[in-house]
């Protein structure tokens, strides 16, 4: 595929994502923040649904060597980076996706967050050029690199190669775990709903 076709495919995919996100008000930040702060799960359920479908889809194709899984070493930088990101997205009230989507709706605060994401990236490029951490992709070996605080590379496919068990089997186990979480949320929502109804009935009786 030529780079131009790649960019066109990516633009088409992004456009549909943007449209669906705008129409559904899905927000990844809300999926985590609302579950933590308000015990509401509208977005959390949607996120889990996507994760279930993708787990089966990706590990299924990875079992037969299909798809383009991400290839880079992970380690402390992965945890620490997402920790900072997690704080940032709650403070900004949007993640990188919703900053684009909200900017598209005319939200200047989201555009501001996006501009400062660029600034943050540029600042990091300066720090990286001074301490060279985390390692550049070219120097990653896939093996643990303890001086750089990296654990190497492993995914469902490497498990398949090592253990001889198809990647989809691991995928189905993960699917079951995600489904259990999804069902626990549904149960919790039902309990919240019943409590709410009972409360309303009681206040009606008092009145």
């Amino acid at each position, binding site marked *: 595929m030529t780079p131009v076709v790649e960019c066109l495919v990516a633009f088409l995919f992004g456009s549909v994502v943007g449209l669906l996100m705008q129409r559904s008000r899905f927000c990844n930040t809300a999926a985590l923040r609302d579950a933590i702060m308000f015990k509401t799960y509208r977005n959390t359920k949607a996120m889990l649904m996507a994760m279930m479908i993708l787990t089966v889809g*990706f590990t299924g194709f990875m079992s037969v060597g299909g798809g383009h899984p991400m290839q880079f070493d992970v380690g402390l930088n992965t945890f620490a980076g997402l920790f900072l990101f997690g704080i940032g997205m709650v403070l900004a009230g949007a993640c990188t996706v919703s900053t684009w989507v909200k900017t598209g709706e005319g939200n200047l605060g989201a555009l501001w967050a996006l501009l400062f994401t660029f600034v943050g990236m540029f600042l990091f490029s300066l720090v990286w050029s001074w301490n060279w951490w985390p390692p550049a992709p070219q120097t990653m070996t896939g093996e643990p690199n303890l001086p750089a605080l990296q654990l190497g590379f492993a995914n469902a*496919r490497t498990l398949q190669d090592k253990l001889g068990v198809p990647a989809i089997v691991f995928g189905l186990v993960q699917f079951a775990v995600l489904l259990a979480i999804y069902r626990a949320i549904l149960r919790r929502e039902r309990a919240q709903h019943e409590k709410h109804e009972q409360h309303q009935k009681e206040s009606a009786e008092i009145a």
Partner: protein
Amino acid sequence: MEFFRKTLDPVFAMAAIAILDIFLFLLLGAWTVGGGETMMTGLMAQAVLGDDLQRIPFWSIVFPPHADYWKIYISLGMFFGAFVGAVLSKEFYWRMPRRASEWLMITLGGLLMGIGIRMAYICNVSTFFGLIPEMNMGGYLAISGILAGAWVGSLIYKKILEG
């Protein structure tokens, strides 16, 4: 059109996105955000600094700026799709935060997101919709990080809101 009048169920929207993402995974790679933004940062920095950008090794070793990087167009597409959706459903209007504390939180939040993405090489999209479904070890490290971060962020947020 009904689609532009009613809010779509996010579970349905995300299921549809997931199915499209499987096609993207087969063609190019899973849906990702962050790489495109880094490339945009590089391109903007190049426009301002010119050849001086070469003095910052990050931009010659990790992310040499070039405009035909497919991830840029996912982000531009999301902006375009959301704009079209907002205009057609008459939900487009200029809005902005009113309080200084909100501007401060957004500024800090944006900076932390940019720094975090580059430190981890991924953002939340690749965590939930890329690494975890690929069962990459990094996905589990990332999800622990983002949950801890979102929890700390929520504490700070509450404090600022209440203060």
